[in-house]
């Protein structure tokens, strides 16, 4: 690869969790995983040597267009309050709001990448009354405009690329940046998410699939059954290839026995019901699997429940396998 693809990383109103997730990328870490694609960090707040005035020189050069920024990565929601001043987050050592720095560098960068659902859509900081007027880079929740207008297009021709998730899988970030470095573009869905992961659902590949098929549902935390009917799982609605790849080598949310909270979707932080309980009307979950007609879901659920094997029913209410599968010799046709 001839010239390095440069990434400048800023943390807005973030928890730092997207960086922490990325630090385990591909079991080698963010720096090494990106290096394989000729991607270099110009500056990253948690990983770079430069501090104070040395770091400010880099930011000032980037804002003025004196150094090329192939991708500006922003982690965290942009704090625009109080009253539009941005004083809920001032960039240390500059007397200017972080919001102003992001806007200035976004205007120069070839691509702008929102890392995590906070930077993409506002996320957790805009929950409830949104006390800090937190916003995403190009979206405010599902419909609104963020720090940048909905018409924003970066110099490279793409809108803000929303690597959503709380925190996103490190692979989503590395693969998005690598795609940009290799091909200069990236296919996005209607909410700015890379289609590479957002065309799947978190439900795909869920290890609880047999329990789902028979609607053999968990009743309490640590049960092995399906988490959708009672414990709030939204994996059948949530974009992401979460169960088609592993998290931290082994896991996923549903593998570990807790609900998918649909963290790749704008507004997930205010889902209108307790996160860990399934909202229902007349006993039927409000959030049905996407693309599925309600009448069919109800009919199929009733049918599959009536057909549930005793093994599946029993194991659904235990934290370990009580009844193993029956042993049968292989049959010839």
């Amino acid at each position: 690869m001839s010239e390095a693809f440069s990434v400048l990383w800023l943390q807005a109103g973030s928890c730092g969790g997207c960086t922490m997730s990325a630090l385990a990328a591909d079991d080698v870490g963010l720096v090494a995983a990106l290096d394989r694609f000729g991607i270099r960090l110009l500056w990253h707040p948690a990983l770079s040597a430069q501090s104070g005035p040395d770091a400010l020189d880099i930011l000032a050069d980037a804002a003025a267009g004196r150094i090329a920024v192939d991708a500006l990565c922003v982690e965290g929601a942009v704090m625009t309050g109080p009253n539009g001043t941005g004083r809920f987050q001032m960039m240390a050592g500059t007397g200017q709001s972080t919001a102003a720095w992001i806007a200035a560098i976004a205007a120069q960068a070839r691509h702008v990448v929102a890392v995590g659902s906070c930077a993409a859509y506002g996320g957790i900081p805009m929950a409830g009354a949104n006390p800090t007027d937190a916003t995403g880079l190009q979206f405010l929740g599902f419909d609104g405009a963020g720090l940048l207008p909905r018409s924003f297009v970066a110099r490279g021709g793409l809108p803000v690329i929303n690597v959503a998730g709380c925190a996103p899988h490190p692979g989503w970030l590395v693969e998005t940046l690598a795609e940009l470095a290799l091909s200069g573009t990236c296919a996005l869905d209607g909410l700015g998410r890379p289609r590479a992961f957002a065309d799947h659902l978190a439900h795909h590949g869920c290890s609880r699939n047999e329990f789902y098929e028979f609607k053999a549902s968990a009743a309490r935390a640590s049960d092995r059954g399906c988490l959708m009917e009672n414990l709030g799982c939204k994996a059948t609605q949530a974009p992401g290839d979460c169960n088609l790849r592993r998290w931290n080598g082994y896991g996923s949310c549903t593998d570990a026995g807790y609900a998918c909270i649909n963290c790749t979707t704008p507004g997930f932080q205010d889902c209108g019901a307790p996160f860990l309980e399934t909202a229902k009307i007349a006993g039927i979950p409000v959030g049905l699997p996407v693309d599925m007609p309600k009448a069919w879901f109800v009919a199929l659920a009733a049918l599959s429940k009536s057909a549930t094997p005793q093994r599946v029913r029993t194991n659904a209410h235990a934290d370990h396998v009580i009844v193993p599968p029956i042993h049968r010799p292989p049959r010839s046709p």
Partner: protein
Amino acid sequence: MTARRLIVGPFNRVEGDLEVTLDIADGMVREARVTAPLYRGFEQILGGRPPEDCLVIAPRICGICSVSQSTAAARALAVIAGAAPPPNGRLAADLILAAENAADHLTHFVLFFMPDFAHQTYARRPWFAAAQRRFAAGHGECARALVPARARFLHLMGLLAGKWPHSLALQPGGVTKGVDSGERIRLLSILAEFREALETHLFADRLERIAALASRADLDAWAGAEAPDRGDFRLFLHIARDLGLSGLGRGPATFLSYGSFGLWPAGVTVDGRTAALDPAGIGEDLTSAWMAGPTQPDAFKDGAYSWCKAPRLNGAVAEVGALARQVVAGDPLATALAANGGSVLARVVMRLVELARLVVAMEGWVRAIRPAEPFCEESPLPLRGQGSGLVEAARGALGHWLTIEAGIIRDYRIIAPTTWNFSPRDAGGCPGPLEQALAGTPVDPGDRNPVAVQHVVRSFDPCMVCTVH
């Protein structure tokens, strides 16, 4: 010599936003003011929500102390529900928390703290070439070896907690994931691999030998027993001796710990005397914070200079962290190193010694898991109640105080470790621990970015995103 004021920021490798204002005279810092420049309003956000939602919201205060925040929230709910996790649930929860603490200790040393010794300021020191080779940000050998080791160690999180950060595995009644017999073996494999990486690169010795270091003389003898670059811990001790880091960053001689894992008890140590901790003595002073009330921000408040509130124990400043944990527990090495208050050396040494002790303890906890016995009990919540969740995060004492009324969160208060350590001045004008520790730090004339200040700040392993939530 003329006095001058220096504003240092943005401070990187501190997990979040930090600005430090230094008043310098006669070649040293006279006064320091520590500013946390980011406010997100988590205490406001949590109010009015269903109580169990804190298990989703609270960990997202911080991506590096995520499990610690989960643990505090789950413990507060458990107090209100009267829940007590079964033995397996306790073991799994302790493993998850210990994994975060151990990974954080390693991350701090490798990625946040040590790269400063590869700074050109030290180009003439005899150890500089070794420090550059091992610790340079981005491509140092130490990070190239231990960042992958950390990633593979976090497979333990994948297995027990689904992912890290931001898991929902920790519940008031235990954990959501049972461990079967095969998974128990895999956990031991993960720990064995991590042990090997630490013993090869970081310590160049057995974990048990590091865990047993018991005095200053013992530490010095261990450091001198081999070539200075045999293990990154030894190289640090060599650098620390050359730079006098035992005399840098002197903190208040008051240490606070909520106690951890049943290994290290709770308490408070003042000038070497340890007493029981009464959490009722903990309060927050708002004098220098941009806060009109405990959860009401005021960005334009006169005289304020930080979003950080000032926690005090019976009105007194206290330092928290791995050093505090070990001092309060009566550990002889920690007690010797912190006889006159914490220092850069003491904080870093006790973090690494604790890392060795944690991994040894974790191996025992995995062996104690009994597959096919329960990992979680049901824990229905009453409509009203009050509870607190106290936990030792990697960086020190973390507390959640929760009040439920009519089935929703009425009040949620959080005091994080770095809120203690990086607190601003209180009503009595008393500076916080870092502000005290920075006073006296040498600064060369004209230096815009004094590296000794960096050492002092980072020695606390600050987590600014927790500090102001």
